[in-house]
């Protein structure tokens, strides 16, 4: 009994320790967003702000066109998520469940994007987007984002599709359902947890991405949040507190998206394991 209690205490102890170190950055960022440069870098790096500078938030809205950047980031992120999911779902279904000679090779081919750092193909990408006339539209970033997220999402979907029993299609075929109907009405709903996870990761990626956006977007009207932050960085120094305020505000949607979709994952997981068990 004693041993069990000790076990429990140490288990909760370590779990709570991880909670602490996982939440601290958020708290730190929150404090940060109320400080000035001197506190941030020199006099009060980790602690509670001495003076709560709400003006940082006022600045974030005044000086900075937060609404525009938010809108752009949303369009880009949601567009990226939608196209990525559609393309990779269809492809992984074909690779995992349909019978064709090159299924395996095609699947391996699609994983190549996992190990290509985007930095190395910036210039060819920019040339491509010029040739395809994507420049100065949201597609200038959506297209490369989707391309780079395809590998990751394909791998996840493929694994999920493989784990489903093959009898599903057989019975669907007996019922006379077409491939499309089987796919959209039977298979896609079954991989819902995977869709939710991919949504989270792809959204996070598109929301926070900087380098490709920097090179591909030059029109002010199309700039995403990470690019907007450039306004605060100058050769004469930056206002880090206001940047912190913008970062706090821009973190909120990502947390909400995560909470929303992780709920979905959790639910779906419970359902599927109950079905199987």
């Amino acid at each position, binding site marked *: 009994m004693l041993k069990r209690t000790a076990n429990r205490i140490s288990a909760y102890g370590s779990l709570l320790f991880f909670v602490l170190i996982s939440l601290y950055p958020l708290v730190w960022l929150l404090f940060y967003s109320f400080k000035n*440069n*001197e506190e*941030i*870098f*020199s*006099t009060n790096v980790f602690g509670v702000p001495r003076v709560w500078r709400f003006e940082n938030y006022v600045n974030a809205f005044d000086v900075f066109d937060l609404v525009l950047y938010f809108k752009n980031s949303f*369009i*880009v992120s*949601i*567009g990226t*998520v*939608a*196209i990525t*999911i*559609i393309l990779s779902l269809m492809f992984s279904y074909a690779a995992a469940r349909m019978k064709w000679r090159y299924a395996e090779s095609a699947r391996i081919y699609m994983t190549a994007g996992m190990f290509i750092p985007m930095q190395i193909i*910036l*210039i060819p990408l*920019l*040339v491509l987007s*010029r040739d395809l*006339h994507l*420049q*100065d*539209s*949201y*597609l200038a970033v*959506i297209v490369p984002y989707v391309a780079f997220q395809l590998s990751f999402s394909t791998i996840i979907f493929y694994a999920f599709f493989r784990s489903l029993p093959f009898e599903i299609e057989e019975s669907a075929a007996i019922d006379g359902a077409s491939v499309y109907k089987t796919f*959209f*009405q039977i298979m*896609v*709903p079954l991989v*819902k947890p995977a*869709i939710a996870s991919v949504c989270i990761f792809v959204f996070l990626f598109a929301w926070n991405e900087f380098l490709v956006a*920097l*090179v591909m977007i*030059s029109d*002010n*009207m*199309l700039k995403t949040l990470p690019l907007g932050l*450039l*306004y*605060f*960085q*100058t*050769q*004469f*120094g*930056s206002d*880090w507190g206001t940047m912190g305020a913008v970062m706090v505000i821009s973190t909120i949607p990502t947390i909400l998206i995560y909470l929303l979709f992780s709920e979905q994952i959790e639910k*779906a997981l419970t*359902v599927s394991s109950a079905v199987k068990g």
Partner: protein
Amino acid sequence: MKKMKTHAMALILLSVMVALSGCGSSNKGADKEVSGNNVEKKPETVETIKLKFYAQYSGQEKAAYDAAKEAMKKVMPEVEVEFEVAAQDDEQKIKTYAAAGTLPDIFFASSGLIETLKNSDNLLVLDDVVKANDIESKLNETSKAMLWNKDGHSYSVPNVGQWAAVIFFNKEIFEDNNIKVPANYTELLEAVTALKAKEITPLTLFAKEKWTGVQLLDMAIVGSDPGGLKKLDNGEGTFSDEAYIQGASKLEELVKAGLLSKNAFNTTYDDAVAQFTSGKAAMLLNGAWSMGALEEGLGEGKMGMLYTPFTDADKVDSAQWNISGGGFNQGFAVSKNSKYPEVAAKYAALISLEFNKQRVIQIGDPNSILVEEVQPTVGFTPIQQQYAKDAVNFKSMTTFAWGFENAKFKTVIEDNSQKLLAGQKLDDFIQDMNKELERVRN
């Protein structure tokens, strides 16, 4: 089961719709622009010409850009410029634009970039515009040279003056701790040792920007040879030459004495400024352009400047005005592929001068390049007046790192100077540098 199905379908449908509306609206944006251009061709109003302008349009300088743009409306009312904010990214973005053939009409360029883009034939030669608008006569004597590239052509009209690299110091720290403000190398070493003993960082260097290490080395060299690292960039001399060995060995000695915080290599500009203004660091290296902002942070009259504290005591008289820094030609350049080359060229040339004027008026730049006398709205601070007085005495200047014309040399010296500052042995440093020099000069 059925419920799940509908949920998932709804989810997908929703995302498709949002995506489509997203793409749709973006296409509309593109269409609008195209049709907008067509409209311009019709002579219903005054033809406006839209130019893209890539510049440091942020922070303090924003005011100067805005005022310059406003003033230009009177001279060239047909032009409408749209600023694109330049990133602090080692000119990566603009180089990528050049490689992909999508340079903006007008952009901010330093001599390193001008050299690169000149070789790849991306730059418009501005000779005709410069002559037609009599630009040269409007520049003061010291700035005239910056107008012309060494090949005899003009690729950009300068928009800021030559700044020295200086070491700013906090007068109070030196006074309170009874440390003499160093006038030569021996005193500098003593000061560093004394500050270190008091647990004050002697010099805060924002070495995450690699040029600062290069500048420190250059400052250490100009005490012995006014050519500094610029000479090596031009292809003369090696690191085995006396002046370079001396400079590097002084740095090695200072680093051992604790000149820098071990944190210097992760320090950004704002971080360094915070160390300096909060009194944790006694000195800060930067270009003289930042004196206004720094003095404001520290308090008026509390900041001093050093130009060549690395000079040996017996050489101070002869070498004290051998200045590190300056030396780079920078201004607004024009892309050869601009749709309106003549207009862009004229605009770039004229706004360069206007921008410099507005820098003086709006942000109190004490280092004007113009013949015209302009007064700032707020007046000059003591240190700005001091600088203006000293600048008359400057005998020679080297360059800032972005003024190096050999990009390979720049990269090599940036990385290797960091190694030296991180505690590399002098002999290894010199050996590495000489090996690399041989390679980059090919």
